Each structure stands twice: as structure tokens, then as C-alpha cells.
């Protein structure tokens, strides 16, 4: 079999995977797209292993490793997604934005405060709120 067929298939698979990772909103589907990309790589490895007639079959051995790693990765990833879904009620990647930078520019003094510590301004706000209440 000509090398082009598995190579083109791998490219197609990888592209589908890239599209899924970049465009899908559901975290499970994103993980599945990652799997697609991994398997595209696996296909490449096996194909080139055959084409090069490697006596040690390094490509096939590496594929086995990749499959193992992928299995572990998907297990962890699904567990994370499950926990996120349980906590937030959604697995939409677009809405998981806790790590975004705040729109307001943070000053050095505020940065120095540990998270959750009520800074002076926050304490003042609480006072204001209580007074308003």
C-alpha cells in the first residue's frame, strides 16, 4: 500500500481533531478530539514504521506507549470534566473562565494581598454595604 493513503488519512483525522479542540464547546467532545489527534499520530507511526522496514519496530512500540498514555489521559480528563460538571452544572468550555484576567488593571498593592484576604478597600466596601443595609 502506498504511504500516501495512511498519511492523508492521518492528516484528515488530525485536522478533524484540531477543529474539534478549537471549536467544540462541550468538554467531552474536546477530549474526544484530542483522542482523534492522538490516533492520527498513531496511524502515522505505524505507517512509517512499515514503510521504513524498521527491524526493531520502534514505531509500533511507540504506538503502544501512546495508546497507554492516551488511555490514562482520557481517564483523568473525563474525571476532571465529571467533577467540573458536578460543581458547576455545565461542561461548556466557553463558560469556564475563572482564570481570565480581570478587566480592571490590578495594582501592585492588591497583587500583594493573598486571595480571600479582605483588603482595605474591600473592608471599606463591606462597611459601606452594612451602613446601607
Amino acid at each position, binding site marked *: 500500500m502506498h504511504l500516501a493513503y495512511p498519511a492523508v488519512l492521518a492528516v484528515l483525522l488530525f485536522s478533524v481533531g484540531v477543529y474539534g479542540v478549537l471549536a467544540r464547546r462541550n468538554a467531552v467532545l474536546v477530549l474526544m478530539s484530542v483522542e482523534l489527534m492522538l490516533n492520527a499520530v498513531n496511524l502515522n507511526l505505524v505507517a512509517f514504521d512499515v514503510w521504513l522496514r524498521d527491524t526493531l519496530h520502534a514505531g509500533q512500540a511507540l504506538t503502544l506507549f501512546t495508546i497507554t498514555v492516551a488511555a490514562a489521559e482520557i481517564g483523568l480528563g473525563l474525571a476532571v470534566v465529571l467533577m467540573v460538571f458536578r460543581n458547576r452544572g455545565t461542561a461548556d468550555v*466557553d463558560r*469556564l473562565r475563572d*482564570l481570565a*484576567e480581570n478587566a480592571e488593571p490590578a495594582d501592585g498593592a492588591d497583587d500583594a494581598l493573598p486571595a480571600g484576604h479582605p483588603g482595605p478597600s474591600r473592608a471599606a466596601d463591606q462597611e459601606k454595604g452594612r451602613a446601607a443595609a
Partner: protein
Amino acid sequence: MTVTLAALVPALPALGAAAGLAAGRRAPGFVRPLAVLPVAASAVLALLVALDLGTGRTLDAATRLTPTGGPAIDLAIHLDGLATAIAVLVGTVATCVQVYSTAYLRDDPRYPSYAALVSLFTAAMMLVVYSGDLIVLLVGWEVMGICSYFLIGHHWETADARSASLKAFLVTKLGDVPFLFGLFALGADAGTFRISGVLDAAAHGHLGHPTLVALLLLAGVAGKSAQFPLHTWLPDAMAGPTPVSALIHAATMVAAGIYLVARLLPVFLLSAAALVVLAVLAAVTMVGSGLCALAQDDLKRVLAYSTVGQLGYMAGALASGDRDAAVFHLLGHGFFKALLFLAAGVVIHAAHTNSLTAMSRMPGLRRRVPDASWTMGIGLVALVGLPPLTGFFTKESVLTAAEHAATGEALTRGLGPADAVPAAAGWIVLVAGAVTALLTGAYATRLWLLAFHAPAARPVVSALAPDDAAGGRAAEPHAMRWPLWVLAVPTLAFGVAGLRTDWLPSLLDGGSLRPSSDTAVLGTGLAAAGVLVAYTAWRAASRQVARAQADAANTALERAAAEHAVRPAGTQAAPEETPADLAADLPPARPAGAPPTHEAIDAAIAAAEAVALTPDPARTLLGPLLTPATRGFGLDRLYAAVFAAPTAAAARLARFLDREVVEGYVQGSGLGARLLGAAVRRAQNGNAQAYLGALLAGAVVLAVAVAVGT
């Protein structure tokens, strides 16, 4: 045996200093013994070494300290009569100063470090005196510099002391830089740093550049021994405690420069130019300092300028090629100047002021400090150089040396040919020395009259006098009185040591130190003339002051009488209390009519005291020179304009470059990083897929770049 003893002489005070510093806080009881005993032991050992070595012998011992590529550096001792005699002086004065300081600085919280530094100072001077190697000598020389910095700045709370200590340090260092190069040039020329080797090379004419070496060394000597133009630090050094002044002025520091020239005199004799330069420096120093001393108001500054002048005498003797006379004057001056400073300390302690003007309004000061006034009188007579005190013999020996040099037969005592000394040097020193003798007589007399001869006690003040007399003993603790008398003995009698050739001169280079009759008559006559002139001027000035006071009092009395004319005189005022009697030799002019009332007398006394005139003979004697002389002839201002101002300007430039330019770059880099961070922060929107998209785009760009590039 002698070598061990000699090594202990500098080592003991140094160890005492270390121990005193270590004991300072933890064991305050040990501080005083640790201050006094090592220095005293060192003085005794110095005396033993001098006796053991005897006359006419030299002792050289050395261990190789550092093999260098060039001339090696040895830990060497070079002892001869010159070294041992000066070491005895240093030990004696240092011991007196330490004993005196235990009382003078009794309540000072920094006494432990002070005493340790004085010990270290002494050790460094002993090292300079005993060292047989120029580099080791330099070590002692520089240790003295730093000790003087710390000691002058002892009262570092005051701005005066801080600036004075900095000034002393910087000015002496200014001389020390050429000095260091002079030593290197000397070592390179002679092929060794050993003093004996250098002297050998000088004797055999192996020194290639004697003039250069001598002039470079003279810069250091001028700095250390306070010769013009580097003398300005010494009067300011009065900001230190008085015992430190005694130590610096008498035995250590300023003596080191003279000692070094005396030690290396054969090198200087090779260069007529250096001798003439030294003579000119000495002459300018002598006359200028005499005029300045006459104008100063601070008791200690008068003494400081007199030290500068006496050092000028020593330098003049060296310029005349006679180191015996210089060392003789150094020894004698060491004793009487230490005495003068320690006595001045007692007087200042009792008067609570340095100012001669204030002392001249303080009757009864002499009765309150009898020992100090007696010993100070002895010291001043010695300073003026009236026979038969030490100062007479030592100063006349200098003048004799100058006279011999002027006639072309300099007393080089076998260190070089007599014609090595140019006659010009002799003449310069002789003329300047004669003028200075006159000036010395004048300022010493002025000092004595102003400090201890306040006008007759006024009624108001004399009522207070008994209280002061009761407290008089407390003003002179024992530890402050006995060093005075210990130093008064050599001040009185040391001069005769030069009379016979087998006494002091045999310890030095031999030859006579007996004053020649011409210069003796000239010097003594001029000194006596100076004393008389100052006394006459003082009499005239005090009569003027008394007249002004009497006028003021009478005016006040008349005004009071006019006011009370309508009222009958109800009070009886004793006529003796009338302040017009203050002027004893003036007819007491009283307003006719009723005897004055108490209020009138009080008003008159107040008016008399308001006439704040001082019977200062300097005003009459110096005339228009008074103001420049008070300011040291503007030398400080000149230095401030020539050296200090450019330095300050350069410092401002460096500050500008640092603050505005360098710091601008630093701040700019920080600001740039912040702006960049703000821009990059925008990209962090929390959408993981956007990140991945950017990652992919970057990877594609890189891949394309690589593909196109290859």
C-alpha cells in the same frame, strides 16, 4: 634580649588597645587599667631599651615578612639613639595622657573606645619610631592617620568634630599619596625598603633621583607634620578632646613627619632643591602660624598654631641639615606642648569655655586652677624660649644650626658634606626663626594675660568668688594634676641635656647642641621684646577698656542722679562700691550732690558690663592683619574654592547622572515591562480554546518560516 624588649614596646599598647576594646562593654572595671598599664609598661620598656642600647650603638634585627618580586619587605627593627630617645618621649607623653584622660573623660560613655584608640595611636607611633623598614613604617604612619580621624571625631555628635576629623583625614591623605610614591621610588632606587640599606645607598650615591624622592616624601611630611600648605587640619583638630590634642601635638602624629625626615636626612642632603623647598615651607609655616596664633580667640587654637610654628622650627633645623637640633627641639617641644595642652584642658574644664575673650572676663580663674596656671606659665615660658627653660636651649640649637648653614658650614654631623646645604636655606630659616621668636613671645604673653589676668574683681562678681574657690579643688582632680607636674620637670630641666656632648648629643650623632652666643642673644632678645610689646599693648588695651567702662558707668550714674534729684537720698551706698573705682588709675568722677542710690549703682554696673570690650593686645599689634589672621589668612576659603568646590560640583554631576540618566533607564525598563504586561494581560481571557488557537497559529507560522527558510 633587647630585640624582644624592643618588639614589646609597640606590641604592648596595641594588645592593650585590643583588650580594652574587647573589655569595653562587658567588663567596664578593666578599662582604666587596660588603658593605662600597657602604655606605662611600654614607656618603661622604651626607657629600658634606651638604657640598654646606650650611646653610639645601633641595633638591626629583621625577619623576612613578604618575599616580593622586587625589594623584599622585612619586619625590621632599627634602633639607634634617635629612635630610643623619641620612643621615651612618646611613652612618657602617652602615659601622662592616658592617666589624665581617666579623669578628663570620667563620665564619657565612649571612654573605652577612646582609651583603646589612644593606645593604638601610641603603638603606631612606636612602630614608626622603631621600624627598620619603610613599608612597615608606612603601616604605623597610616594607622596613626586613622586613629587621629577617630579621636578628633570623638564628639561626633557635633558637626564641628565631624568635619574636623574628615578634614584631618583628607588633608593628611592628600600628602600621603605622594608620600607612598616617594617610598616606592626610594625603594626602587635603593633596591631595598630597609632603612639601613637606603641610608647606605644614599651614602654611596646610588640613589638615582634624590630630588624627586625628597620632594614626594616632603608632601607626606607636610601633611603629617602640619607644614604649609597642608597645615590647615591641625587647628581644626581642636574639636577633639584636649588630651588627644596633647597626644597629637606633642608626641605622635606631627612628630612622625619630622622623625621621618630626620631618619632619612642623608637622602634629603643629596638634594639642595628639596632642602630649599623645606626651608621655604618651614619659614612660611613659622611666620604665618605666629600671626594666626596672635589673633585666635580659642585657647586651644592658639596652642595649635603654636605647634604648627614649632614644627616649622624643627623642619627649619632639618632644612639646615642639622637633625640633632630638630630632634632636640622635637623632644623639648613634646614635653612642654603636652604640658600646655593638658594644663589648657584643666583650665577649659574649670572655665567651661575655650574662648579667651570669655576667660578675660572671668576673674579668679588663676586661683581656681593653681596647678594648671603654674604649669601653664612654665610651659609658656618654655615655649617663648627664655633661659634657662627647655625651650631656650632647643630653639637656640635650631637657630644655631640655621646660622651655621647660612655661613656655609652646616652642622650635618657627618651625614653629608657641609656644603650640601645651600646657604639660602640657612638664611631663610634664620630670618623666619628670628621673626617667629618675636611672634611667639607676643602670643604666649597674650594668652597668659587674657586667660589669667582678668581685670580686678568687680563687686558683683567678687561676691560670688568664694563659692567658686570652694569648688576649685574639684576642678583639678588628682589624675589631672600630677601629669602636669610630671611633664613640668622635663620642661624645666631637659634643656641642659644638650649642654655637654656626652649627654644627649652622644645619643644622637654627636657634636654640640650648645647655643652659639650670637643667636642666643638674638633669639632671647627678640622673644623678650615680643613679651614686652604684648604686655605694653595689653596694658594700653585694658586701660582703654577700663576707661570705656568708667565712662559708661558715670553716664548711667548721672542719668540716675538726674532722675532722683527731686527725691532725698534715703539709702547709704558705700563709696568703695562705686563702679567708677573699677578704673583704679582714673580719677573717680562722681556727680556732685546726693550719694547715688542702689538702683543707680546697679544701673551703673550693668552699663559698665555692657561695654563688652576685651583688653586684647592682638588688635593693637596686628592692626589690619587681625581679620585675615583670625581666619588663617583665608587658606581654608582658598581650598574650599579650589578643591572643595570642584569636588562638590563633580559630586553633583555624578548625582545628576545617577539620578536622572541611569535611574531613568532603570525606571524606563520597569515601566516598559509594566506596559508590555498590561498588553499581554488583555490576551488572557480565560478561554482555553483561544489559547490553543494562538498556539496553533504560532506553530504554523514557525513551520512555514522553517519550510520557506530551508
